[in-house]
């Protein structure tokens, strides 16, 4: 039962073929069985989940109207605030933090009558590409538990791949939904900046962060996006516009679709199995009536350095709030107020978070601001212009989601720059605020999934989801064996 997709569960519950309690129990049993191996959860909520399922079942029995995803069990990344439920960001700094409110997306999923199974592991404060930076545990890739699940939403991706929830939410600042989706063979959507409210998402880099779904298939991805998208007055960067159903827009028709394939994403550094799978997928698109051709995004190599300056600068500012006064961890020994701040932050943050705060503080400090922060923002303008030009000619762009399939646990932890390279295919999308979806398009010789990324115009989610939907039908999916 745990292998069902969210839309299958929704339909079965609606048709009274299954109760929410039954399916919730099935997922809790599944968690019991595989969680020791996968370690995707920080917090599991068995009693709360069964109670929520019971409430939904009662509503249905009484004939009351229910939400669009009534009874579907799901889980949230642990940087999404959930009222009275631990929200740790996988950091010692917030190990005991119980938010007094729900983030907007959690509220929307409550309104849709979903069932929350728990909160998911991540790289501390969403900084990382392997979920090895969690204070609590290292999540494993369900396809091979000696490999990383990717990051920072590694818990969200591994959870879906291991069938420990019907779908999950993650957040994506430089690839944190798409890169783990790619490594764990799920479908992940990073929506256009401003379409999903960030209210109650613990901020990393506010001009880049965006919440999105990780799901078992494209239909699930679209229907979850339908539930979380929309204007929210509580987020000052929320875009005020109306959205038609993305699920209903899935036709699978890509006849005449113009696909650009940026050569900069297919060359050096991209492994052979990844290139092969992407080229095969492009041929599938062609067979379906789409056209593709090679093109150029010449500034792509500057996206990663620009991203690290911008995101670290914003992080150093956003993380200033963690000082041992208002919430979370406080050091036991200190001399005075300033020492309380410094001692708390030094003991509460892990190495990668400190590294990013240091880089960001450096880039914003007197004498370096123009050279690094302002320069990166100017390059951001140029990268956006590059994309604008590309979208005059093409409807969507197709690239690999990651340069390689899943790498080994511990393989890249010694060299931060090497780890940063894992995001080389994804960061430019955040810089330009664009939507992009990742889905499995093949498997390497070891059975590890290869992810394909489809990048769209601003607010072009319907087009990229539809292209993904068309391709998905031509890919035979391989499940992990746990």
């Amino acid at each position, binding site marked *: 039962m745990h292998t069902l997709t969210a839309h299958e569960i929704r339909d079965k519950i609606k048709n009274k073929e299954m109760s929410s309690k039954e399916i919730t129990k099935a997922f809790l049993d599944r968690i019991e069985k595989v969680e020791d191996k996968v370690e995707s959860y920080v917090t599991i909520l068995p009693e709360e989940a069964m109670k929520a399922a019971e409430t939904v079942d009662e509503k249905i029995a009484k004939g009351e109207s229910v939400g669009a995803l009534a009874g579907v069990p799901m889980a949230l990344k642990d940087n999404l605030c959930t009222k009275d439920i631990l929200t740790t960001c996988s950091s010692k700094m917030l190990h*005991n933090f*119980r*938010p*007094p*409110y729900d983030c907007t997306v959690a509220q929307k999923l409550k309104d849709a009558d979903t069932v929350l199974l728990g909160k998911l592991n991540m790289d501390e404060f969403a900084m990382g590409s392997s979920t090895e930076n969690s204070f609590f545990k290292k999540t494993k890739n369900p396809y091979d538990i000696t490999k990383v699940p990717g990051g920072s939403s590694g818990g969200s991706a591994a959870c879906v791949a291991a069938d420990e929830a019907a779908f999950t939410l993650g957040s994506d600042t430089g690839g944190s939904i798409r890169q783990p989706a790619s490594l764990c063979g799920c479908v992940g959507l990073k929506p*256009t*900046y*401003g379409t999903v409210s960030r209210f109650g998402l613990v901020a990393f880099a506010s*001009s880049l962060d965006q919440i999105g779904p990780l799901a078992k298939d494209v239909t699930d991805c679209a229907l979850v996006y339908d539930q979380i998208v929309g204007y929210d*007055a509580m987020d000052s*960067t929320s*875009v005020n516009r109306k959205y038609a159903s993305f699920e209903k827009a899935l036709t699978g028709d890509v006849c005449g679709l113009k696909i650009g394939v940026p050569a900069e994403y297919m060359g050096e550094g991209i492994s052979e199995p990844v290139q092969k799978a992407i080229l095969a997928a492009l041929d599938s698109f062609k067979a379906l009536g789409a056209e593709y051709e090679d093109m150029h995004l010449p500034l792509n*190599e*500057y996206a990663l*350095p620009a991203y*690290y*300056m911008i995101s670290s600068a914003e992080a*150093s500012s956003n993380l*200033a709030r963690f*000082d*041992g*006064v*208002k*919430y*979370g*961890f*406080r050091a036991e020994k*200190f001399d005075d*107020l*300033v020492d*309380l*701040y410094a*001692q708390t*932050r*030094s003991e509460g*943050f892990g190495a990668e978070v*400190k590294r990013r*705060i*240091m*880089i960001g*503080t*450096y*880039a914003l*400090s007197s004498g370096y601001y123009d050279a*690094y922060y302002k*320069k*990166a*923002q*100017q*390059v*951001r*303008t*140029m990268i*956006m212009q590059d994309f604008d030009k590309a979208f005059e000619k093409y409807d969507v762009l197709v690239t690999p989601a990651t340069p390689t399939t899943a790498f080994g646990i511990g393989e890249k932890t010694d060299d*931060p*720059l090497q780890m*940063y390279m894992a995001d080389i295919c994804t960061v430019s999308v955040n*810089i*330009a605020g664009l939507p992009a979806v990742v889905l499995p398009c093949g498997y390497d010789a070891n059975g590890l999934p290869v992810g394909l990324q489809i990048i769209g115009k*601003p607010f072009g989610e319907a087009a990229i989801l539809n292209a993904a939907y068309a391709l998905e039908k031509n890919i035979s999916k391989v499940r992990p064996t746990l």
Partner: protein
Amino acid sequence: MKISKEEVLHVAKLARLKLSDSEAEALSADMESIIGFANKLNELDTEGVVPTAHAIPMSNAFREDVVKPSYDRDAMLANAPSAEDGGYTVPKVVE
């Protein structure tokens, strides 16, 4: 690109971080490599290019100035490491 241990300690002070000797040394090497990587941006001529802070052009989001229910004070203070008489407590700052 050289970033000395003194520079690292200065930045740490700005960021309210206390670093051990070994942490400062490791960060000096890491920052040299990461900031060195960022120097790649200098290959691009950005003369006259307007910096972008946000991908989606937007101005201030205004709302009506109306009173709405806010969060309960005790609920907000429940997460404080130390609270007293409806406020956060910190070490004495004024002698």
